Structure formats: C-alpha cells, structure tokens
C-alpha cells in the first residue's frame, strides 16, 4: 500500500461518480424488482417476490420461461456457429489464403460495421417469403422445396434470426481470433512439421490450446451479447410469429412499453444474475482447460 504514488482518496471523485451513476442505479434496480412500480400509479409498493413468482409461473398470461428458453437457444447456437465459422475463416485467412488476404478480411468484417438496424431491414427484405431475394433465387434454380417462409414460420423464425446474427457477428469474432493466431510463434508449427504432425494434429495440439485465452474472450463476449440480444429480433420478427422468437430483452421492452416497470425490472435483474453466474463459470471452465 505504501508503495503507491498517490493516496487512496485521490480516486475519491471518480469513485463517487462511479457509485452515483453505476452502482446506485443497479442497486435501485434490484429494489424495484420487488415492487409494483408501474406507469398507471404514482405509488410504488413493496410486493415481495410477486414479480418473481409471475415470471416463474407459466400462467394464462405471458410464458416468460419460453422467452428464457429462446434466449438460451439463441445464445448457445450463435456461440457455437460464430466461433466455429470464425475460427475456420481465421485459420484460412492467416495461413491458407495468400492472395488478397487483407481484402478478404475486410470483406468478412464489413457486416460488423453496418448498423444492426440496417442489417435487419435488409434481411427482412431478403427473407420475405414472396418477394425476397433468397426465395426468388432458390426458385429460379429449381430448389423450390428449400424456399421457406423464413421469418414467419414458427419453426424457421428462430433459426433464421440466428442465421442472420451469425452472418453479422462472425467478422468481429474472426478479427479477434486472427490477432490470437498471429501471436502463436511459427516455430511450434515448424517443430511439429519436422516431427511429422499432420495439419489437423498441429491444429488440435498447438493452435487450439494456445488459442484458449482468446476463445475464452470471444465466448464470454458472445455469451453476454447473446443473452442481451434485442435489436435483431425486434426488427426482424418483433418476437413473432406470435411470440415464437421473443427473447428476454424483447419481453423487457414489451413490459416497459406496457408500463409494468416492476415486472420489467425483475426480468432484467434476473438476466443480470444469470449473466454473472454463467460468465463466471465459462471463464473458470475455459481457464482450467487452458491450464490442462
């Protein structure tokens, strides 16, 4: 402690602002989760665990657990797809393709630069079952049976949203992974090649273990993003058809716009807890794997 150049209270100003604008609102959020705060009445009453009971009961009203399920499916699917495809592309664009590698990287990264709203609106048009580019293309090459009612079919809506999000997200993950790949010394691969290791073996024995810290970062990023997903679902399907693609955040938005602030706060509190717990375990798990 004595070795520090400045005393603790020098950070006081920043700390006070941090407490006021970050910690205090979060704690207040926790409190409101236990109240009936709504837009129709100026009174806020403490109602205990009522909101939590509402969320965990599958009553005649909203089936909140269905939204949690959708969110989890979305998160797991996008983590797996984005990581697998982005890793493949990263390896390809680092070691495989020699010509115009930078150009290809830029092209792959481009979707991440576009605003989510633009991406969603473009895909809404592409995926229109009657006039969309995708179905028109499929029909023109005789693949009519593959033309689906992408965003408006109960069975296809969530996979379509996952597909669009993966398309948009892989570039970003790929760039992080390329940085990780470039940090692996070439000597390891040379040594492995001399020992007669196949490409797959050196990928499994050298690339993967050394990439673990980077993969941990991308997984945590994808996890937090996936659990908080809102904009892409909101624009592409608005939770539809019916409520087939509603996620926790679209449900929170829905509750807020209905003026049920208490329920909305409860949902976000719950999601916050889930994120902390899952984030912690993912980091622990992946660190352990990396150490092994």
């Amino acid at each position, binding site marked *: 402690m004595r070795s520090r150049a400045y005393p603790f209270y020098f950070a006081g100003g920043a700390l006070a602002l941090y407490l006021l604008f970050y910690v205090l609102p979060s704690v207040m959020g926790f409190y409101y989760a236990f109240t*009936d705060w*709504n*837009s*129709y*009445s*100026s009174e806020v009453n403490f109602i205990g665990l009522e909101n939590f009971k509402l969320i965990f009961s599958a*009553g*005649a*009203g909203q089936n909140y657990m269905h939204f949690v399920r959708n969110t989890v499916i979305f998160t797991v699917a996008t983590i797996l797809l984005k990581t697998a495809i982005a890793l493949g592309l990263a390896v390809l664009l680092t070691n495989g393709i020699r010509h115009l590698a930078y150009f290809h990287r830029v092209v792959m990264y481009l979707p991440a630069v576009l605003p989510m709203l633009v991406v969603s609106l473009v895909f809404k048009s592409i995926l*229109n*079952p*009657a006039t969309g580019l995708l179905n028109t293309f499929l029909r023109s090459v005789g693949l009519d049976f593959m033309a689906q*009612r992408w*965003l*408006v*079919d*109960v069975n296809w809506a969530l996979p379509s949203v996952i597909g669009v999000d993966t398309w948009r997200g892989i570039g970003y993950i790929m760039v992080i992974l390329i940085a990780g790949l470039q940090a692996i010394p070439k000597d390891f691969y040379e040594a492995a090649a001399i020992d007669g290791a196949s490409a797959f073996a050196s990928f499994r024995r050298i690339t993967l273990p050394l990439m673990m810290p980077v993969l941990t970062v991308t997984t945590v990023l994808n996890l937090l993003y996936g659990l908080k997903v809102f904009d892409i679902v909101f624009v592409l399907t*608005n*939770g*539809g*058809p*019916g*409520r*087939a693609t509603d996620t926790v955040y679209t449900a929170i938005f829905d509750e807020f*716009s*209905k*003026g*049920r602030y208490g329920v909305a706060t409860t949902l976000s509190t719950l999601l916050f807890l889930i994120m902390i717990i899952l984030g912690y375990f993912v980091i622990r798990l992946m660190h352990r794997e990396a150490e092994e």
Partner: protein
Amino acid sequence: MKKVVYLFSLLVLSALLLAGCAVAQPAAPAADTGAPSAEGDVTLTYMASQGWIKDAELELAKKFEAETGIHIDYQIIPADQYFSVLKTKLNSGEATDIFGGQSGKTDLQVQYDVEKNAVDLSDEEWVARHDPLSLEMVSLNDKVYGAEIWDTIASNYFIVVYNKDIFVEQGLSVPTTYAEFKDVCLALKDAGISPLYEPISDGWHHVLWFPMVGPRFEELNPGLAEQLNKNEVKFADVPVMVEAMTQLKELYDLGCFGDNALSDAFSDANAKLASGEFAMAVTTLTAPISIETDYPDTPAQTFGFFPMPLADNMLAPAHPAGPSKFIYAGSPHIEEAKQYLAFLTAPENLQYLLDNTPDFAALNFSGLQAKWTPEQQEFLDAYPAKSIVYQDAVNYLNPQWMDIGKDMVAMFTGAMTPEDVLKSIDQRRADMAKTANDPAWAE
C-alpha cells in the same frame, strides 16, 4: 512519403470533424421556438401524433394567429413513440398547453388521468354541437375533457372493401352471413384470385376483425359490454366471441388471406386492391378515394363495402373514439387554449376543415355539410350502426391491442387456440384493472 499521406489523412479527418460540428451548431437554438416571442405574444404549444393534424388545421391555425396574435407551435411526434412521450411529459409535469390523445374512457382515465391532467371543458359553447357519441368518448364522470374533431365514420369504420367488377365477373354476390362469406372466399380462390388482403405483419390490422364485430356481440347479448366492464363475465365465457375467433382462424387456415399474409403490410393494401390481385381488403370508407388518387385507372366506384361478417355480423362498426385535443391543466395559457378550441369548432372553420381534408367525408359536429360518395351512402343506408365497437365500449381492451395481435398470430400458427387468445385478453384486462385499482376487480 508515408508521413505525407498520414498528415494529409489527419487533415482531411479533422476538417470533416469540424464540418460535422459546424452543421450541428445552428440546430440547437431551433429547439426553443416554443418560447413566447419578444413582443410578449402568447405561443401555445401543441403536441400530437403523426397524422392527427391535417393540413387544413395548420391553415386555420395561421388564420387564428392573424386574428388573435396567438401563435400555435405544433410538435408532431412519430406515432409509435407518441404515447410514451406524452405519458412521460404528463408524469413529469411538462406537457404542452394542448395535447392530443386517443379518446375513450380507459385512455382518459388510465393513460392520461384527465381528472388530474386536463381542463374541464363542459361549459364550452361547442359542447352542445358535438356529436353525443364522440362527447361520451371525451368525457369522464359526466365532465367533458376534450374536443374530438374527427371524421368518426369515414376514417374510423374499418369494413370489407370489395372489388365490384371481380364480384360481377365471378358471379358472386355480397355475403350476408359468415357462411356466404366463406363461400365467396373459396370461389375466388378457385378462380385464382387472392380473396382478401390481410396484412398481419403490421401487428395491428388483423386485430380489427375482433373488436370491430362488437356491435354484433352486443346484438346477440344485450348489455354484454356493461357486464364485461363490471367484471361479471369474461371474454372466454362468451360463446359468440369464441365462435368469431374460431371463424377468423378458419379463414386463415382456408387461405382466404392469401399465401403471404404474415409478411404483408397495410401500406400495400391500396396497391393490391387497385391491381385486382386481391378482391377484398379490410380498410376504411375513404380507401377507394385514395386508390383513385394514386391509381387513376381504378376509379373509386369500382369498390363497394360490407361489414366484417364474423358471427354473421351485418352491422356498421360505430367507432366514435378518435384523436382528440385536451388542454393541459398545468398550462399557463388555459384561456388562450380554450379560445383556440372555440375557434377550431366554429361552424365555418369546421366546414373549412371538412372541405379541405381529403380523408374526411363528415365531421362529428352538427350543422355541417357532409360529402358522401354514392357508394359510401349506400353502405351507411344498408348497414345500421346500433352500438359502438368493443375497443370503445369495453374497458382495458384498446391498450392491449398489439398483444392481442401477437396472440392472434400465435393462434394462426397453431401455438394458441381461439379460447387461449380470449383467456389471454381476460388476463391482461385483470392485470390492468388491478393496477388501475378498479373496484370491479377488487378481490
């Protein structure tokens, strides 16, 4: 060389940054236009949702300013954000002198809390000339709180608009029951014509099918709306409601709404009717006039009208609720705002508004000259308006419109049954009534 390129890029970027700042600057003072001018003249601020203020009203506001020196500053908010902005302003005590709002008892009480936020206008001269049904929509506990200057018939009646030429070609007649309507749909489908354009993707349009048939529910169960408001009966317990919802599902399943209903948008409805691709659509009595304006090859006379025939409904959907003007109780210019409403509701100014607004055919004040087309008049003569639609008559229904829409889509796609949709409506009504401390829902 590289250094030069870097320096040049830096220069260009800085220039762009500065240019950006320069554009942003003059925008700032523009936000203050609502303040009174230097001469001490009064400026009334007036907030409304997009589409509520017609061009003719803006002209009238100029005339009002010329006569009285009172300037009206309109603040138009996009429709999908309007109610959140309005509620935030009302809750924080910063509402404009005049604010627009959809009329109806639930909205007045629950959404705007007019007893606290709006000025009592019961003693104004124009109240006596206001249509009684509209007056009821802007009143709460026998006090009038707003002026609803709106065409509550031509713009408010959502009915089936059908292409008369197609009906003649196919030898079809206007249906008078649900069964006949279903046959018409199937016959059209067999002839390769998409029967009815139902844009479900907007989320609100397909909901019209249910509450707009309210007069029929009331005809079969007199006093039903009142019972629903007293919480003596629930939606799911009313057989005719289950029947109507089941019929709607049947129409969807039979493909009456075309192949692409879930992706269709209401903004294309006029185009689809004009092209003859679809034979019918649920829209307003003024739609044919807009179609003729946009597609001169399709005259307005091509189209006729009949009510949405679920549960054999043959009644006009009287829908007196509409955008209304309220004076904010906290306004420093209440008298001037009253003066403005008195000006707008003067008979000659109402007639000017009516004559110069293409979407209006009549206004809800007595002593005005309406401008019905023969087809519109024919509809009004053939289908009586016996009682009002359920989004106006039944409390806690209108505010959950979009939720009902989602449930209905779930019903179309098989995730919910018609009964589930009605139960869900009951559940949300109970939730709203509870938060509004409605004694009828007290446990």
